[in-house]
């Protein structure tokens, strides 16, 4: 069983990275896409209901343990999980498959783009990590997402440090 899981991770993780990059390349080649042609997004799982007694910011943030997992960093204006960050996601998946924790994934951006676009790009980054974890066997119901866009930088002015997803777990 353990072998099968590891095998699945080993096969699926690179495929996901590859498929994200493929999509980006397709788009760049043909900017006049029709969005209906992307309806086959395979890994979409609806988000679970929120538990508002715990959150990433403001009320309930003291109940969140942000020390368990390291941030995952992203390339400029991209939500694809880059290969160098893959081990972090695999480590998260391994722990979340076996423990009883729930997790909030918070997506962030640098300040280089425009504000509202960044807010939604941050959400998409959080969702990229979420769908990868789901593909690695983590229950969708344990994973909530939130975006702060460019409004909560880790290091103001340091773009590469701010393009990230952060993780907070709670019981």
């Amino acid at each position, binding site marked *: 069983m353990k072998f099968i899981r590891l095998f699945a991770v080993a096969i699926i993780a690179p495929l996901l990275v590859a498929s994200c990059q493929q999509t*980006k390349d397709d788009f760049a080649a043909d900017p*006049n896409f029709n969005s209906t042609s992307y309806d086959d997004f395979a890994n979409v799982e609806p*988000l679970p209901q929120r538990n508002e007694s715990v*959150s990433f910011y403001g009320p309930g943030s003291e109940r969140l343990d942000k020390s368990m997992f390291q941030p995952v960093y992203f390339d400029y204006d991209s939500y*694809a999980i880059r290969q160098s960050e893959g081990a972090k996601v695999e480590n998260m998946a391994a722990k979340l498959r076996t423990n009883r924790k729930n997790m909030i994934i918070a997506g962030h951006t640098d300040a280089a783009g*425009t504000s509202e*676009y960044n807010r939604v790009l941050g959400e998409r980054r959080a969702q990229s990590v979420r769908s990868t974890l789901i593909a690695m066997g983590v229950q969708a119901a344990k994973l909530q997402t*939130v975006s702060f866009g460019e409004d909560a930088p880790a290091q103001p002015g340091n773009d590469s440090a701010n393009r990230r997803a952060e993780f907070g777990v709670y019981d």
Partner: protein
Amino acid sequence: MNKSPILSFALVLVAILTPVADAQVVIRKSSQINIEVERFGGANGSQAAALVQQDLRSTPGFKLARIAGSTWIAKGGISGNALNGSLVSPDGHVRFSRRYSAGTLAGAAHLFSRDIILEITGKLGLPGSKIVFSGSRGKGREIFICDHHGENLRALTADNSLAVSPSISPDGGTLAYTSYRSGYPDVWGMNLRTGTRSRLFSSPGTNTGSAISPDGSKVALTMSFSGNPELYVGSIGGGKAKALTKTMQVESSPTWSPDGRKIAYNAGTGSNPQLMIISSSGGNPSTLKTGYAYNTEPDWSPDGQRLAFNVRSGGNIRVAIYEFSSGKTTVLSDGESPVWGPDSRHLIYTQSGNVYLLDTETGSAKAIVTGMRAKEPSWTKR
């Protein structure tokens, strides 16, 4: 019929030049509106008159001048907390006489200015309009409101959180905005006449990017509860919203056409957000070819003819305009989140935390709000 070639040439010249010369005279005559604002009677009358003068002086085409036979006259008087204003045409007829009693004296003066401009030109100017934006005076962000020149600035929210992405309804009666006060990004609505507010959209994930429809009854926004950010249209009262898109891209920043039938937004898979247009009741979107790789934050002009938006060019975010009739994109200046004023001529945008007012015909821009870390402005359209 035997005319000399020179005479024929001269006649042709006269025929060509005469109507053009006439037209130029006509244009020059009608382009300048001379108006005199008479001293207003009553307490604070001179302050109110000065505001009307300032409004008219800054409106293209208007000149505060008295020229015999071609001058409009604005008359006013203060009684209690109301301004009585009337407008007299150059031929001596009273065109309107109204009482402005709502709110502050400054607000009344701006409404009088708005009516003067509308009566004479048949079009809206900027006076009487309101601007909202997300700003900060320290920790977190709140939503602020001010007049068209950045005056009478005040906070609308005290969320002690991140209050961002405001949209004010075209008539100025309603505000929708994103607040993290629950710990999560939700869309809140506020009745600006009564001050009451409610949480409109609080689905799992991120709820943001509200755009109130021209008739004030609906909100277009981005929600991500399905597992991917998509565009939705819901009621201004909240509740269940209808999905406009179902894709694997990132959709954001909707803006309504003035007739409410279409919505423009940006969509992309990272790196290449494009401007899209979709029916506000759903269907297949079409892409606008702007010639730029990065296109975000569109705002539809009240006359329906243009989109203001952001492009990235030379590493900087710039303000651009797409004109529907020609399909052409023009880049105007550096700046973020441009939005149109009610005259479909002026834009406001932010740069380095300041709000700038830009005349798109002359290219002149000036800061109207400074020191507030301002971003994401929205402007009433009437």
